[in-house]
């Protein structure tokens, strides 16, 4: 017979206190995942930074002060109180560039997800609902899009269309739409079999109406989760392309461009490249954690319980 130790009164009291001060996952009901407050805070801070960049940034992000070039962050030896996160090779304030750079990252994410995600959503619904030859053709297109080296394609676009926000958004949209289309199509295939779709036909609804009013709202949850999970992908793609010189042309600050500019001096002025790198890591990680939580929250299997 196994010996089960009963927790002492003191132990019980302690765990009660601990649960009140620091609620743990196993203390909460199984299904309710904890709200990810830390990621939400980080995302909010970055969004606020982007929205109010002109008010928050201490300096202009593009004005050069060559006298103050390559100053380390304020807390290091040789750092100046004037530049909290130091300056880059042109004497530009890194904090200001970081704040303005958040704008570019978020605008690109917003536009690319609207364009790429929207196209993917539409194609996924049509392919899944109409089926047959239409489905086959569209899904082969998706397969083709997956085989394409996206970075190469973006570089090609940058060369032919010229650098800029438009090129960047198009390139990233082309990278995104296929994965959206594939996931949404799968969802629609299952929805199409449900009786409410058959009964909508019985009621005399046209295919277009069924897709727009019956299928679309049912895949919006999945779509929202896909969007959040892909924000990280977009930000990294933007940084990569800017790093490679196919993104927003300098001197506009973007996080990827900042890393690229600091790359050559990583040995003596590491902060120029590392600080935007940390910013990207924090934002992408936060967005992904938030996306994971959202996915669990909106999981239809849990919702039906």
């Amino acid at each position, binding site marked *: 017979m196994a010996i089960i130790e009963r927790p002492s009164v003191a132990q019980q009291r302690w765990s009660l206190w601990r649960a009140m001060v620091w609620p743990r996952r196993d203390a909460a009901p199984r299904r309710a995942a904890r709200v990810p407050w830390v990621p939400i805070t980080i995302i909010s801070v970055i969004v606020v930074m982007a929205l109010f960049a002109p008010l928050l940034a201490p300096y202009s992000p593009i004005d050069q002060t060559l006298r103050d070039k390559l100053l380390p962050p304020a807390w290091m030896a040789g750092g100046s109180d004037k530049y909290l996160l130091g300056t880059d090779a042109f004497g530009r304030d890194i904090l200001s560039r970081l704040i303005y750079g958040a704008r570019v990252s978020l605008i690109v994410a917003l536009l690319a997800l609207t364009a790429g995600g929207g196209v993917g959503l539409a194609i996924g619904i049509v392919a899944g609902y109409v089926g047959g030859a239409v489905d086959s053709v569209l899904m082969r297109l998706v397969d083709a899009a997956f085989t394409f080296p996206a970075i190469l394609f973006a570089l090609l676009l940058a060369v032919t269309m010229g650098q800029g926000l438009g090129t960047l958004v198009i390139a990233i949209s082309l990278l995104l739409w296929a994965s959206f289309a594939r996931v949404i199509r799968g969802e629609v295939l299952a929805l199409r079999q449900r009786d*409410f779709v058959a*009964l909508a*036909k*019985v009621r*005399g609804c046209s295919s277009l109406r069924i897709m727009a009013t019956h299928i679309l709202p049912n895949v919006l949850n999945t779509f929202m989760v896909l969007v959040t999970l892909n924000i990280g992908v977009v930000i990294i793609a933007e940084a990569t392309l800017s790093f490679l010189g196919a993104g927003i042309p300098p001197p506009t600050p973007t996080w990827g461009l900042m890393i690229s500019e600091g790359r050559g001096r990583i040995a003596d002025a590491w902060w120029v490249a590392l600080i935007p790198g940390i910013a990207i890591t924090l934002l992408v990680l936060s967005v992904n954690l938030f996306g994971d939580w959202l996915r669990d929250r909106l999981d239809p299997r849990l919702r*039906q319980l």
Partner: protein
Amino acid sequence: MSDTVLEVRDLHTHFFLRRGVVKAVDGVSFSLRRGEVLGLVGESGCGKSLTALSLMRLLPKGGARTIKGEVLLGGENILERTPAEMREIRGRRISMVLQDPQTSLNPVFSVGDQLREAIERRRKGASLSEIMKEAVAALRRVEIAAPEQRIGQYPHQMSGGMKQRVVGAIAISGEPEVLIADEPTTALDVTIQLQYLKLLKRLQAENGMAILFITHDFGVVGRMCDRVAVMYAGRIVECGPVKQIFEAPSHPYTRALIASVPKMTGSAGRLTTIEGQPPSLMDLPAGCRFASRCAHVEQHCLDAYPGTVRVGDEHTADCWKVSAS
């Protein structure tokens, strides 16, 4: 007959697959009168549901086609209508209730919104408050308590029986002449089944629609139907008034089916079953389709399909062994 609302003549709906042709509906004829409930019974896979879908012209994807026959709704053949004209007919002249209430409603819309979609079509240009008033009335008609509150609720907040009643309310909101009920009570609790059947009966009495009631439950047939059509391997083998079919079934298959229904009286012995399997719908025999399982089989049963024999007033059977009255 003048009060016939739906007449089906020699309907053939086959699946054209790479492996061959599945003759799922192979020469079905019946008629449905105003205010009548016709039961369509038969075992799984005999073509009951496909017959219903053929009437709505909503065949499943993957090679199903209606290749022959007529479906006369109010005298006009709806198999010749265009898809756009069919959309006008569906919901207003023919409507349908399906088996599973759990998936019959869209989970992301409130019940009111789903009713509204159906009502809006019939009453173009009506104001939202008028339509919602009508939606509440529709819920009340299907005996949902406190319809004003229920109308804002979502399907997951309702029980199966309640959902099926909402599905019914949506189906009849277009005031159809014909309602096809494809095993509407199969997924419901036994206690709720009877309630639902009574409700259907009452609604039918109110607006005089005809119901094609598909089921495999003879008990339900006895309660609901005026006439029964027994289907076997893609054809209707016997059709007649409920009372006659129960008391004097002519076709050996009908007899075997009725014999296999458990009785409430007598000893609880082994249930009677029908030995064997129905023939493959890809490879149908030349003769009677029930011949291989029939206790009274003779040589000519195997050679040719029997014609339809009138065995009584409105009572027909496809069998060599019955004689015309």
